[in-house]
C-alpha cells in the first residue's frame, strides 16, 4: 500500500484525508485515489490526464519525473505527497 498525502491548500476546496491505496505506478495509485474521490481528478490532473502544471508530486521525497504519463514507479510503503507548485501573486 502507498500512503498519499495532499497539500493543505487543497483542503479548502476539497477536503481529503491522507489515505492508503495500492499501485505499482503513480498512475495506478492516483486512479485508486480518484476511485474514492472522483472530484479530486480535476484538481490534480488536467483534461488530458497529465499532472496540472502547477501541481507537483513527490514520491519518497523525490519530485516525479513523468508529468505526462505518470509512469514513475512506487513500491509498497512509499509515501506520496501531492503539493501545489509555487506560482501566482
Amino acid at each position: 500500500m502507498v500512503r498519499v498525502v495532499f497539500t493543505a491548500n487543497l483542503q479548502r476546496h476539497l477536503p481529503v484525508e491522507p489515505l492508503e491505496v495500492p499501485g505499482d505506478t503513480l498512475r495506478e495509485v492516483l486512479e485508486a485515489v480518484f476511485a474514492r474521490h472522483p472530484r479530486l481528478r480535476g484538481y490534480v490532473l488536467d483534461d488530458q490526464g497529465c499532472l496540472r502544471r502547477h501541481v507537483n508530486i513527490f514520491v519518497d521525497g523525490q519530485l516525479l519525473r513523468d508529468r505526462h504519463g505518470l509512469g514513475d514507479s512506487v513500491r509498497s510503503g512509499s509515501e506520496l505527497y501531492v503539493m501545489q507548485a509555487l506560482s501566482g501573486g
Partner: protein
Amino acid sequence: MSRGKPRRAAAKKPATPRLLVATRKGLFLLSARGQAKNKLGGGWSVARSAFLGEPVSMALHDPRDGTLYAALHLGHFGSKLHRSRDDGKTWEECAAPVYPAGATAAGRPEGPDAPPPPLEPASLEMVWSLETGAPGEPGVLWAGTIPGGLFRSPDRGNTWALNTGLWDHPQRSKWTGGGYDHAGIHSIAVHPRNPGHLTVAVSSGGVWASEDAGATWAPRTKGMRAGYVPPEQSELPEFQDPHHLVQCPASPDHLWVQHHNGIFRSGDGGRLWHEISAKPSTFGFAVAVHPQDPNTAWFVPAVADQCRVPVGGRLVVNRTHDGGRSFTALHRGLPQRHAYDLVYRHGLAIDDSGDRLAMGSTTGGLWSSADGGASWQTVSASLPPIFAVRFMS
C-alpha cells in the same frame, strides 16, 4: 377588506436591484437594500461574499430558476464551476467543462508570417463567458472557454459537452491568443426568440454565428479590420479581435462590438459591420447595449492598445443614442483626475430596464448609475480587481 369582493392584487413592488461582482479575490453579491455595517456607496450594500481570496472569472444569475453560478480560476487546481440555489447562502461544486481526450489547440504564433505554432493538448484554462439558454430552454447553459471552446450544458451544469461544430471547424486552428496564450470565447449571444441562433466572439478569432443550434458555423466579420497585421490580411476573420460583443435583446439583429481596432455595429446579425468613430477614443474592452433600443450603447474608452488607461486620466463612459453617429462622454461622478482604471470586457453591465448601469475596474473601482449613465455614484474604490459585473434580474 369586505367579504365577498374579489381580492385586488397588490401592486407588484419593483424587485430590489442586485448585482454580482466577480473579482480576482472573490465574488460579491451587492443589494440596494442591506445592513448598515455592510454599506458601500451609491445605496449599495454587500449582501454576501463567497470564495474570498479566489479568482472568480465569471458569474451568472439564471432568471429562469434563480440559480447563481460562479466560475473559479484556481491558480493551482484549474477552473471550477460552483452553483447556488439559495441566493448565495450556500454553494456546491458542479461539473466544469472538460475537453475531450485528444483535443488540441494552437499555441501562440511567433508572428503573422511565422509558421503555424504546434498544436498543444487542450485543457480547460478558464471559463471566460457564461450565459443562459433562451427563455424557453430551462436549464440550458452556454460556456465560452480558453482555449477556444464553446460548451453547452442541458442540465444546469451537471454535465457539459463541447460544441464540435465550432471546435472542428477548419478555421478554428487559425485562432490565436489575444491577452492570453490561447484563444478564448468571451461573448455568447443567444437569440431570445430563436435559441438555435447563436453568435459568439473570439479573442482572437473573429465573430461566428450558427443558425442551426450550433451544428454549423460561419464567420461574421465582413466590414471589420485588424490594424495589427499586414494590410492584405487585415480583413481575414481569424485576425479580428472583438474584445466584446453584445446583442440588443429587443432587436437581436442589432449587434455592437468593441474591437481591438475600434467600435463596430451591425444591423443584420453580423453579416456586415460598420466602423464607428468616437472621441475621446475608440479603444477599449467594454460595451453595453440598451435592452430595448438598439441605437443606444455605452463604451468605456482607454487611450490605446499600448496605453490602457483613461484618456487624460479622466474616466468617462461614452454613450450614443443614435446608433453611433454621435457620442457623449459622460463623466459626472466618475474620477476626473489621475484615474487609471481600465474596465474589462465584462466589467460594464446594464439592467433589464436600460436605466441602471454598473461598472467595475481593474483597480477595484465600482460605480453605478440609475439614469442611463448621465451621473454615477462611487460604490467602492477598494474592491479587488474586477473581472465581471452583472445585474441579477
